[in-house]
């Protein structure tokens, strides 16, 4: 929008020199930009207001004689109330607007496909459930909501795609998530925004938004990795999970548990989600099911975050409502 204004006013030489607006390439971006412009408007209004009043008074009431004594003025209560209440009202509007967008942007639509991201000093590891893995590159289809599950192998990183107006920190030992739906085919920056050590500024990459058909081709082509859940299934056997988690084994069968609400032995209820599966693997004793003995060993320290995500993907794939994975 600003770009067009610049171009029309003949300032396009300047506009060509450096951009003044980031590309907006997701469904989220538009809403955020509108609020951003509104805030810019408010800021301009008050800044211009204050500056002009000051300049006006500076000239009108400049000192004319060294011993000038100006008249006394009084502060009417109404005025004080006005400039307390009007900004308050503006703030209320901004708060609700911003929070509405934020809450909306923090809940992925049900039809999202998934991508997993691991931050590591100093690169982004990205896994597609179908198998392909990438480093510092992220290929996504256009017009498809995508939920990104983010974690970190070491310190805190920040996963940031400015063109989509999304950002979330990658925390060691925890899953965070964002979602976006790209709207424009193109290539966009991917940054790390949480300071993470020496090469923090090299922890950058590119996001490629592709037409859906190209994306499918990309998935099919390239190096052929087994899908995440396949890799997870493999691990499930190697690590011995399958020895217990089979019908008649010591552990509960995992078929169909994903997304269900479970009652724990202490009576609390929990939804089986990525975080809970991760917790079951790292801290099994904190996941106590009523009819089972607490025998599952911890696998803490035996898995890196990538393998963890593969296991999670596998357990998920046993779920009843197989999520559409963008095929």
């Amino acid at each position, binding site marked *: 929008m600003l770009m067009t204004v610049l171009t029309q006013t003949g300032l396009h030489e300047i506009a060509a020199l450096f951009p003044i607006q980031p590309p907006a390439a997701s469904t989220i971006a538009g809403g955020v930009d509108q609020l951003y412009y509104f805030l810019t408007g408010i800021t301009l209004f008050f800044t211009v207001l204050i500056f002009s009043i000051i300049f006006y008074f500076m000239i009108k009431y400049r000192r004319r004689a060294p011993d000038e004594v100006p008249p006394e003025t009084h502060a009417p209560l109404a005025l004080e109330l006005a400039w307390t209440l009007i900004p308050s009202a503006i703030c209320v509007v901004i708060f609700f607007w911003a929070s509405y967008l934020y809450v909306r942007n923090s809940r992925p639509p049900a039809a999202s496909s998934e991508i997993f991201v691991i931050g590591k000093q100093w690169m982004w590891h990205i896994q597609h459930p179908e198998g392909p893995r990438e480093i510092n590159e992220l290929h996504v289809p256009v017009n498809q909501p995508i939920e990104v599950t983010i974690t970190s192998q070491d310190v805190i990183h920040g996963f940031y795609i400015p063109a989509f107006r999304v950002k979330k920190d990658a925390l060691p030992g925890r899953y965070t998530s964002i979602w976006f739906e790209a709207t424009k085919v193109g290539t966009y920056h991917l940054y790390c925004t949480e300071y993470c050590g020496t090469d923090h500024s090299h922890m950058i990459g590119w996001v490629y938004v592709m037409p859906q058909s190209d994306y499918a081709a990309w998935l099919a082509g390239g190096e052929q990795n087994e899908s995440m859940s396949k890799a997870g299934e493999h691990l499930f056997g190697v690590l011995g999970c399958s020895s217990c988690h089979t019908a008649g084994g010591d552990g509960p069968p995992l078929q169909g548990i994903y997304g269900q609400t479970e009652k724990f032995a202490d009576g609390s209820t929990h939804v089986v989600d990525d975080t809970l599966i991760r917790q079951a693997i*790292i*801290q*099994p*004793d*904190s996941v106590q099911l009523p009819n089972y003995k*607490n025998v599952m060993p*911890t696998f*803490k320290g035996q898995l890196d975050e990538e393998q963890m995500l593969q296991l999670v993907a596998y357990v998920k794939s046993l779920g009843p409502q197989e999520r559409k994975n963008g095929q």
Partner: protein
Amino acid sequence: MSDAAVTHEAHAHPPGFAHQFETIEQQRDAGRLGMWLFLMTEILFFGGMFTAYTVYRSLHLPAFEVGSRQILEVRFGATNTAVLICSSLTMAMAIHSAHSGKKKGVTMMWLVLTMILGLTFLGIKLRFEWYEDYLHHFVPGLGFQYRPEWASLGSQMGQVQMFMCFYFFMTGLHALHMVVGLGILTVLLIMTARNKFSPDYVAPLEISGLYWHFVDIVWIFLFPLLYLIGGRY
């Protein structure tokens, strides 16, 4: 703006009177307020620890309970609580005797008693708790070892060490305050011996008393938080 002159009254300065004040009452009030403000700071200082402790206790409840029940011994904690309460009483009595004009020997006796009780507290803490913990490898950083009995905690066993870390840090910080308090008491003892105090001038005693009582209060919270709140049944 100044249309009246209040000269610095040249009244006979009582001992300990500082030039920047107008009256000795003003000075005493300032000292008290100053100490209370300092104690506010202390509350937030320990408060930071308490907050971290609360958060982690709620996150790792089983491990913290095991640490509390299986490592800490209530009898020492309770005894020490009683010892500190006694020392608070003797401290209050020391101020009382100076304030009501008793012989300096009486005040000194109360001060010495307070110090003895303070030392008793530290002695119990050191000998029967910290030293024993060290022998049993319960000190993080000094050869901490996990116990087979804690195996039921499974993967959460590591947080027993975290509990002990908080335990040593909180009680250590408290003990450090006690040591500072003992230093202050020593100074007060010397001042009393040199007849610095009179019924009109007990401010240093009083202000140090506030500090001593505060250290007592910290322990009044540490005792249940570390030793008791999970229950010992």
